[in-house]
């Protein structure tokens, strides 16, 4: 298993250089339920106007961390602030300036699209028209369905409605808990495009997702697993700091390929990555030709052994 890597704060983040300040500050936060340590000594900051991703599978602690920031749970240890307000003492102030989209979207299934939006507007002491500009691009896509019950919407539409409801009061920080889980690939892409546009309007966005490929759409990400942060940086830096030499290998018989590679004593790791296998050699000292020769001897046809740039998923798996 890889050794523990120290958490690196991104010193070269362009937003930091602009000196815009912190929107979210998390210092040594820990939280456990019964015997399970949900969140273990986590510290990092999110700058104003950043699009920050929490990337990790179920059980990583993403939801727990977000609930603590949303003042819905109290941490066992540590301190956290949202726009300078403490999450325990100033919870009332925080609840006025943050927009929240929890898992499963939390819409009222038996109210219509319109009714849901109006309800959240009044709860935040505003009206739909007051901040309509902010949600217009999003809401326009579901407006034709405004009289439909929320329970009857497709996953993608529920997503858009929930986002609109979270934005209706022009929050300064937006916290989204797995907004793209269980939604089709097209809606996912559209959703991220909407987030990017919102970011341009100056809103700080904290998003969590289990989909590693979405990490590249963020300014910075924290890779999380089992309550701990594996690493934090811009996606690009994370990839740059990946220390292994990675090969992409394919042949006409993918399944046999992976079995053969695993039986090869010079292979360190070999994992399926769609069309190709991502393979590392022991001590990174193995040449491409060595793999080629071994596999040709095993009678693989259509063989390709290429140098490969790692992606976030490779980085994550290396850190696990």
């Amino acid at each position, binding site marked *: 298993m890889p050794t523990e890597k120290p958490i690196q704060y991104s010193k070269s983040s362009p937003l930091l250089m602009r000196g815009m300040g912190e929107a979210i500050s998390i210092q040594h936060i820990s939280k456990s339920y019964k015997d399970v340590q949900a969140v273990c000594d986590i510290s990092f900051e999110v700058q104003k106007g950043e699009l920050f991703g929490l990337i990790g599978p179920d059980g990583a602690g993403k939801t727990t961390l977000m*609930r603590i920031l*949303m*003042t*819905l*749970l*109290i941490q066992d240890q540590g301190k956290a602030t949202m726009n300078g307000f403490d999450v325990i003492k100033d*919870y*009332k102030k925080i*609840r*006025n300036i*943050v927009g*929240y989209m*929890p*898992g*499963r*979207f*939390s*819409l*009222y*299934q038996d109210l219509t699209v319109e009714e849901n939006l109006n309800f*959240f507007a009044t*709860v*935040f*002491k505003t009206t739909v028209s007051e901040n309509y500009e902010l949600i217009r691009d999003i809401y326009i896509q579901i407006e034709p369905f405004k009289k439909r019950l929320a329970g009857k919407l497709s996953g993608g539409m529920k997503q858009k409605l929930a986002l609109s*409801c979270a934005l209706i009061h022009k929050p300064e920080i937006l916290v989204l808990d797995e907004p793209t889980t269980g939604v089709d690939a097209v809606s996912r892409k559209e959703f991220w495009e909407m987030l990017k546009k919102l970011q341009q309007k100056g809103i700080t966005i904290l998003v969590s997702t289990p989909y590693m490929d979405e990490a590249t759409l963020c300014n910075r990400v924290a890779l999380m697993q089992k309550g701990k942060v594996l690493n934090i940086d811009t996606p690009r830096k994370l990839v740059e700091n990946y220390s292994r030499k990675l090969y992409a290998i394919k042949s006409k018989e993918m399944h046999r390929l992976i079995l053969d590679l695993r039986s090869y004593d010079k292979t360190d790791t070999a994992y399926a990555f769609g069309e190709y296998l991502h393979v590392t050699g022991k001590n990174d000292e193995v040449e491409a030709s060595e793999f080629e020769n071994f596999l040709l001897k095993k009678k693989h046809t259509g063989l390709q052994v290429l140098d490969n740039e790692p992606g976030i998923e490779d980085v994550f798996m290396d850190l696990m």
Partner: protein
Amino acid sequence: MKQFLGFLRKEFLHIFRDPRTMIIIFGIPVVQLMLFGKVISTDIQNAKIAILDQSHDNTTREISSKLLSSGYFVLGQELLPGDNVEDVFRQGKVKMIVTFGPEFEHNLERDGKADVQLLADASDPNTARILTNYASGIINDYVKKEKLQNIQLPDQINVEVRMLYNEGLKSVYMFVPGIMAMILMLISAMMTSISISKEKEMGTMEVLLASPLKPIQIVLGKVTPYLLLSFINALTIILLGVFVFGVPIKGSFLLLMGEAFLFILMALSLGILISTVAPNQMVAMFISLLGLMLPTILLSGFIFPIQNMPLPLRIVSNILPPRWFIVIIRNIMLKGTGIQYIWKETMVLIFMAFTFIALSIKNFKIRLE
């Protein structure tokens, strides 16, 4: 067959590993049996009666003493001829008044007959019937025994039975107040408890909590619709009772509705309290049904007289809000009492409502945990 056995085995494993199922299967029947056994008793003991003795002669004293030593009756009050019978009943101190006419013994010896009047509070017709039957039995028993001893004229003691407030001993007079209490309790408490638990289950509670809405706004927002609806319910029940079943409203209608309002408020607060502890709708419904409906039917005096129950159950009965409400309604509707006679019960309801509201607010979590 093997499939079936395999499935059977699995089901047993599930049952034994779930503490809740075990409680339902073993705990509840035992509780129910104990409750039913103790509660459904048609025997009366130590019912409070009053005796108006206008003769004070040997015979009346003997009869009185026989009544009071029977184990069925205790003396609640000695009455004097000037006392207002209606007041005595309104105060609720006695369930039956035994009246001996003047010159009782004299009349008996001279004419061979005398009159005894049994006046019973029939707002609870079952109890009234039983009490008058017992009393009549004891009195007639006495006559027979005396007859054997004094071989004289055929003695006759006429026992005149009058049922007050409910001449026809209509059971519906007893039921309507009880049903009203039960329905209002159930609807109000169960509905509010489910409403909040539903939000928790659906996950929308999370969004509400994270918003600037104050807990008091959420709670009141949940309670108010049911307040209005339950009030309409109460009105409907009363109107049906009056116009379809002929139950009278002898007292103030305004007072009646006022007490109903108070009761509803109390039940709603109880519902909120339940919802602060129940994590989901199923549990909320469970608590409401088991904790509210069953005890209400069995222990609130709705059907089975409270005074028949053993002491522990009577204590439990005192904790049940419907028990007090039923007394209030019966008094207002059937006896026509005013607030001066039911202020104690009203205070109990106010106290309960206040306690539930305070506890709910204290318990209502502004966070998820």
